[in-house]
């Protein structure tokens, strides 16, 4: 008698989340991909003669106070948003995994030490730490990525640590230890693959949160630097024109919210599946 169990459980609720999330995210990602090859105008090209034009045929999203095409800038801003969040999450993920799994696996002083460091980092309100880091090392895309990566690493470390502590109690890990598999191999080959289902929603939500932070920093002028476009900077620049040129606020804000919301929906879908699949 052979029973076949499917661990790839899909609930209809999750599917709805996926659909909504992918649609929203798709808008931003497609914009990003197109921007790699083509933008209607150069996003940095100023044109004093056509300042603050309302949306029209030549400029579907209007122009800003430099006469730059907002559509082109929104397209190019999506590039930084995606690039920074992806690179930052990658750093956070690597650091978090490298710290969290050993902490959870070895426990004791290793755990205490690593978690103490992680907790100390988490004791700073996130944006504060990122701001200070950028203030110390200077505002640039690279520094923003590293700062955000550092700020978010403890979150991933926690996920890994808790997951590892659960998994290491399972029989197959004990079995591997009894068989004499080396600890690093247990962590890398036995534990890590089983953390993926938990890391996946954390990663997606990390992308969204990191985008929130990045846009906040850019809004304060400590993120992406002009003339490069980023949603946060575009929004802070357009604040002064919110009454006379609302399109300067609307389009970047919409794209930003689409991206974050899309990611939230996807992570929600993953989470629902994980919860329902876990119950089996």
């Amino acid at each position, binding site marked *: 008698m052979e029973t076949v169990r499917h661990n790839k459980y899909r609930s209809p609720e999750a599917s709805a989340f996926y659909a909504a999330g992918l649609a929203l995210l798709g808008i931003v990602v497609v914009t990003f991909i197109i921007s790699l090859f083509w933008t209607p105008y150069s996003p940095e090209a100023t044109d004093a003669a056509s300042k603050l034009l309302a949306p029209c045929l030549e400029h579907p999203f209007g122009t800003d106070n430099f006469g730059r095409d907002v559509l082109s800038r929104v397209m190019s801003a999506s590039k930084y948003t995606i690039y920074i969040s992806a690179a930052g999450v990658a750093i956070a993920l690597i650091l978090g995994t490298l710290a969290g799994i050993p902490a959870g696996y070895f426990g004791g002083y290793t755990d205490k030490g690593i978690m*103490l*460091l992680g*907790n*100390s*980092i988490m*004791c*700073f*309100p*996130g*944006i*504060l730490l990122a*701001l*200070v*880091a950028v*203030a*110390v090392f*200077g505002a640039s895309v690279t520094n923003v990525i590293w700062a955000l990566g550092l700020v978010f690493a403890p979150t991933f470390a926690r996920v890994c640590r808790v997951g590892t502590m659960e998994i290491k109690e399972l029989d197959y890990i004990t079995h591997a230890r009894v068989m004499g598999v080396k600890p690093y191999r247990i962590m890398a080959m036995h534990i890590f693959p089983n953390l993926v289902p938990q890391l996946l929603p954390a990663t997606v939500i990390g992308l*969204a949160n990191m985008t*929130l932070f990045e*846009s*906040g920093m850019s*809004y*304060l002028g400590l993120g992406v630097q002009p003339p490069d476009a980023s949603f*946060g900077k575009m*929004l*802070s620049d357009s*604040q002064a024109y*919110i*009454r006379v040129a609302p399109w300067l*606020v609307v389009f970047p*804000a919409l794209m*930003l*919210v689409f991206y*974050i*919301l899309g990611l*939230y*929906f996807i992570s*929600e879908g993953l989470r629902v599946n994980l919860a329902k699949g876990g119950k089996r």
Partner: protein
Amino acid sequence: MDLQGKAGYFVGKLIELLVTLLLVSLLVFAAFSIIPGDTARVMLGPEASEAQVDLLRTQLGLDRPLAVRYFSWLFGILTFNPGTSYAYNMNVGELIAQRLPVTVGMSAIAMVMVILISYPLAVLSARKPGRLGDQVCSVIGHVLFAIPPYVASLLLILLASSVFSLVTVGNYVTPSDDFIGYIGCLLLPSFAIALPKIAMSFKFLRSSIIEQRASDYVRTSKSHGLSDLKILVRHVLPNSNVSSITIISIILSDILGGSLIVEQVFNLPGLGRLLLSAISRRDFPLLSGIVFYLAFITVLLYFLSDILAAITDPRIRLK
């Protein structure tokens, strides 16, 4: 309550708190010791002579070894006397104390809003999960979650000023002058910070209540003939509160961070603006003071939430 049995737990947490604070102080100090730029030169401006700059450097103690500076800084900051701001030429503690009402007030009001709004909504939503009202709440929650607080602030300002023609920005009144006015001018910015957190807290509370309602002891209580309301008030809510304590402390810390940005939009004289000006002026004592005390508040919040959780949950003991 068996608090004596938890004495060990409390002591353990206290030690953890102290060690964390020490590490936090080291991080803060280390960060600011590597800031590029010569503080003395910045303070005196470009026209000052090299001799003047040297003199000031000595006066500020910037020529002492790093370890000496760390310990004297640590001592000062722990005795709430973190030194004199380079830029403002005032006691840092005093400067921070002046700004604290804005940041703390805003965070407190935002927190009250989060609880007042998310709690009843979560309870109502969780009564009939999956119904229209619940789904509408959840979708709105997700959207609110995705709007950065400063964007929400912009929209709120626009809404308040153009639709309701109400003055919303920059009329900060100190609490000692006019307490009602003080609360009043912080309401809108607090609301902007609170919005995503309301969504977060709603989502968490809702799922926690749903989870608790499905638990075995609720079934037991039902079999004992208790009414739904009684089960909710006496069993479901206390249990979901225990699991919410940690989330609430995380939300509080997020709110504290969020207020730093939102006060820029509303032009409020809070810690965020002090922080940014300290950053641009290389004001080391001020910067480190702000960062340390903000972290200090957060550490304390986490500590208190641990203690609170330990008091409300009889299961927690020293592991």
